[in-house]
């Protein structure tokens, strides 16, 4: 028993977890561990298996094979012990009751509850405490869901695409609140398909694609791995490609006619070296890779490594 506890001293432990729906492997042999105090982003495009992973973690779904442990116990046991607070993407709310009544219920059901007024204030919904739940805007409803997730002193907070439906300022306010939770030593796991969000908030980013863990590292590492910038320009005359291919930090290059397109993990250094070649690039553009392309880049890199 002691070895199990030591091995799962982690907050969350997935061991070779697989979940299929018909022919689709939503989660495919996933192994991962979260450690106390981390803020972790689960990043992936739609259909990558993020929601299924969170559902498995919360015990809403059961794995076909493999094991899911939360604080060394089953997900349900961890929830009953009051160690997990969660906000679901599809988390409906009870209608025709007020915000304060609903949050009061969540506090009442939590073994280690916070005061209702504190929870409302922290979620920024004190002003709408008396409003009926079915009269809320999308962003307000998200804040109520957040209040339900933080109704008590849980050690792990799980958020599935929490900023959906929020405008930019609401988003920033939301993440400021979230950071407070993390600063109190809580482990935070959130799913998102915004690379910027993962970049700005998370200590650690897990990249999920087709149910498999593609990458696990800091946001900077992930971006580097994905070849985070795309540089394109045109050159006149005949192009001598050897010095171009030797540019530093290049992850790929494509020359067609007068147009050169390349991906680089450090655009500043690459462009600097480009000018150092004594050429005069025209229509120079430097752009970030979309997440979708970043995934393609990582996937290709992984496949190249395997073959």
């Amino acid at each position, binding site marked *: 028993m002691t070895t199990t506890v030591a091995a799962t001293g982690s907050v969350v432990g997935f061991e070779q977890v697989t979940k299929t729906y018909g022919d689709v492997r939503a989660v495919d042999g996933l192994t991962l561990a979260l450690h106390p105090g981390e803020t972790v982003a689960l990043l992936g495009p739609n259909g990558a298996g993020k929601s299924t992973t969170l559902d498995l973690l919360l*015990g809403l779904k059961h794995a076909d094979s493999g094991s899911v442990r939360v604080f060394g116990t089953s997900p349900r046991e961890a929830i009953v012990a009051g160690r997990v607070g969660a906000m*679901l993407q599809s988390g409906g709310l009870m209608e025709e009751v007020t915000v304060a009544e609903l949050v009061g219920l969540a506090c009442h059901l939590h073994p280690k509850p916070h005061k209702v007024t504190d929870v409302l204030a922290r979620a920024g919904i004190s002003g709408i405490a008396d409003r009926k739940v079915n009269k809320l805007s999308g962003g307000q409803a998200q804040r109520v869901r957040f209040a339900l997730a933080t109704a008590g002193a849980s050690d792990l907070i799980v958020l599935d695409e929490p900023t959906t439906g929020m405008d930019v300022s609401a988003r920033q306010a939301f993440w400021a609140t979230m950071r407070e939770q993390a600063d109190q030593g809580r482990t935070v796991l959130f799913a998102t398909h915004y690379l910027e969000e993962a970049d700005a908030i998370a200590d650690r980013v897990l990249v999920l694609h087709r149910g498999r863990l593609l990458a696990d590292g800091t946001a900077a590492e992930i971006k580097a791995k994905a070849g985070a910038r795309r540089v394109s320009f045109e050159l006149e005359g005949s192009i001598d490609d050897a010095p171009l291919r030797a540019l530093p930090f290049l992850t790929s290059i494509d020359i067609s006619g007068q147009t050169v397109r390349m991906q680089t993990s450090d655009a500043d250094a690459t462009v600097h070296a480009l000018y150092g070649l004594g050429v005069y690039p025209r229509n120079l553009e430097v752009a970030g890779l979309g997440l979708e392309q970043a995934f393609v880049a990582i996937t290709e890199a992984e496949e190249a490594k395997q073959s």
Partner: protein
Amino acid sequence: MNSLIKLELTRALRNRKFLFFSVIYPSALFLLISSTNGSTAKVPGSGLTLPTYMMVSMASFGALTAVLMGNSERIAKERENGWVRQLRLTTLPGRGYVLAKTASAAVVSLPSIVVVFVVAAALKDVRLDAWQWLALTGAIWAGSLVFAALGVAIGYLATGDAVRPITMITYFGLSILGGLWWPSAVFPAWLQDIAKWLPTHAYSALGQAIEQSQAPHAKDIAILVVFFALFAGGAAWLYRKDTLKA
């Protein structure tokens, strides 16, 4: 779980439409139907006056409305919008949700029964012994559990647009064919043969037996027990299926 029951109750009591249909409507219908004939006319085969007979029918109808209408639609809706999932992330035990719904429906069904009794006694001179009033309240209240289970089963069976028509057909079908709106004695013989096997018929027969100063018939109790087992078993099975699907 008490906190959820309390909140469910608060909500039900705030819902005017629901209160109208479960509390006011049965009393109004009682007045309407019991006034069609003189209040001394006897319902064939029962020895009871029409108001006395219809009082039990309408109290049963009100309780049926309270436990069936509220729950089936709400459960279906809350399953769809994800509230049921959200509750599964709390310490509330899995069955807590259904139990809270049933408990709050049971509380709301009590006024449905009592208001019909008060109206019948005050405006239609229905007179019974004290024990009969108490036994009637108890029997109709306890019997409503059968239909509470049916409401839960429908809530887990259907979703979205389908749940309302299914509830309505079940509700009106059981009410009318079971003889809650008109004594089934006025039905043609072939319809009476069907009606006497319906749970709503057995349900109102419980109360009518008490009014006749008899113990409820064993056959009616047996019918109710069988339907309760059927509805509760179905609800439990559908609930488990829904939970696995999540």
